């Protein structure tokens, strides 16, 4: 499926704003992303397997923090980050 990558992570994808990745859950999708773009997952998900503050995953335009949420191949996934800080 297509995954939207925010600007803060595009250094991992060679500048690509949209990449392909697979997974039956959000967690599996992020692991697949990491296999394709090493290091990208740990910048988004901490060692307790929790999405880091300010990072957001949208599935079909609905925000989810549940990494166990199931996905189907037709789902549209976007990773975004909050516009916070200075």
């Amino acid at each position, binding site marked *: 499926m297509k995954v939207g990558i925010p600007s*803060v992570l595009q*250094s991992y994808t060679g500048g690509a704003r949209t990449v392909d990745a697979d997974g039956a859950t959000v967690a599996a999708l992020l692991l697949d992303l990491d296999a394709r773009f090493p*290091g990208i997952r740990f910048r988004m998900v901490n060692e*307790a397997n929790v999405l*880091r503050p300010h990072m957001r995953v949208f599935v079909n335009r609905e925000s989810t923090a549940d990494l166990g949420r199931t996905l189907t191949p037709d789902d549209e996934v976007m990773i975004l980050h*909050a516009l*916070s800080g200075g």
Partner: protein
Amino acid sequence: MSEPTIPPGSRAFEPLGESPPLDPHRHEPLALDGLTLLVGTKKGVFFLQGDGEREAFVLNGPAFLGHIVQHAIVDPRDRRTLLIALRTGHLGPTVFRSTDFGRSWQEASKPPAFAKPKDDRKSNVVEIVFWLTPGHVDEPGVWYAGTSPEGLFRSEDGGDTWQPVAGWNDHPNWVRWTGDMKERNPDGSPIHSILIDPRDRRHMYFGTGSAGVFESNDQGESWHLLNTGMLSPTGPDPHPEYGYDPHCMTLHPMAPDLLYQQNHCGIYRMRRPEARWVRIGDNMPREIGDIGFPIALHPRDPDTAWVFPMDGTDVWPRTCPGGKPAVYRTRDGGETWARLDRGFPARAWYTVLRQSMAVDSERSIGVYFGTTNGEVWGSTDEGEEWRCLAAHLPHVYSVEVANFAR
């Protein structure tokens, strides 16, 4: 209010914009050489390259623009490997490495991360990689990292993969010593000042802002407190077992039984095998006090040290006392201190953080520091005269001296 000016003598300053920002994932033609100051800032890392005489310093960078760089340091064992601890406001903490003088960078394939607890405790999460220390000279490739919250990590492959030091991270007293997670310093509560005894790689120290100073004699398998003699900043008991805030600690490379410490509450010295801190900051002028973050040692003279005091009165402004920047130097192990302020502006209101003062090892020692308002200052005559080497940088978090060998 008048605009701040760069004082006379700052001829070395190269304006920003001379070199483009360096993308951490692209191989840019940065090739560091000779004496270089590594300047970690809130918005990236800068490189101030000195000429052979230290007359001119040319500014390169930033690399990792927009990343919060807590520490950038060269490996003194090969003088070509660089490690940088960073994160952004949104992305998690990590470590980047260069083994070719900064030409190319690789991210650690396994950055510092706490292990999953073996019991039902909540997992700890590394928020900041704060401190990097190269290992003992007999262990090439070994590095240590201190994090916030208080984690200690070790790499045996030059910083590519990091393993938790279980003797500390899983210590049964970890929660008791490090305190309630809800009351952490908003800027983090890190492990810092990781020191390796040059005579014995198993002998280590580190400091924390929550508990104090720790020592290990078995390369981190076990740890004990080393706080006797310090004054506690909080609580009714001025001398509790733990609860101290050693801002910066260092040992002398030629006299490793000698430890110096700039504490939240004073400047201290310890001569081993004694295990008692002596407050040498009591010899500082009363109107200045002995509060501050950094302390730097003369690499060849164990009795010479430099500090940069800050205002610790009433609400703790943490700025230069009276708004008058000054370095203080002792030549006699802290018995007396001399004010060194020639070259500084008459008024400035910055702070120098714990990782932001460093020395070189030239014949006449160079002393350097970075400020929270984005200036880097240097002296090439051991502090007698100062000049601004760079200005208008972001908030400086760290300054380290590298002497690259190409």
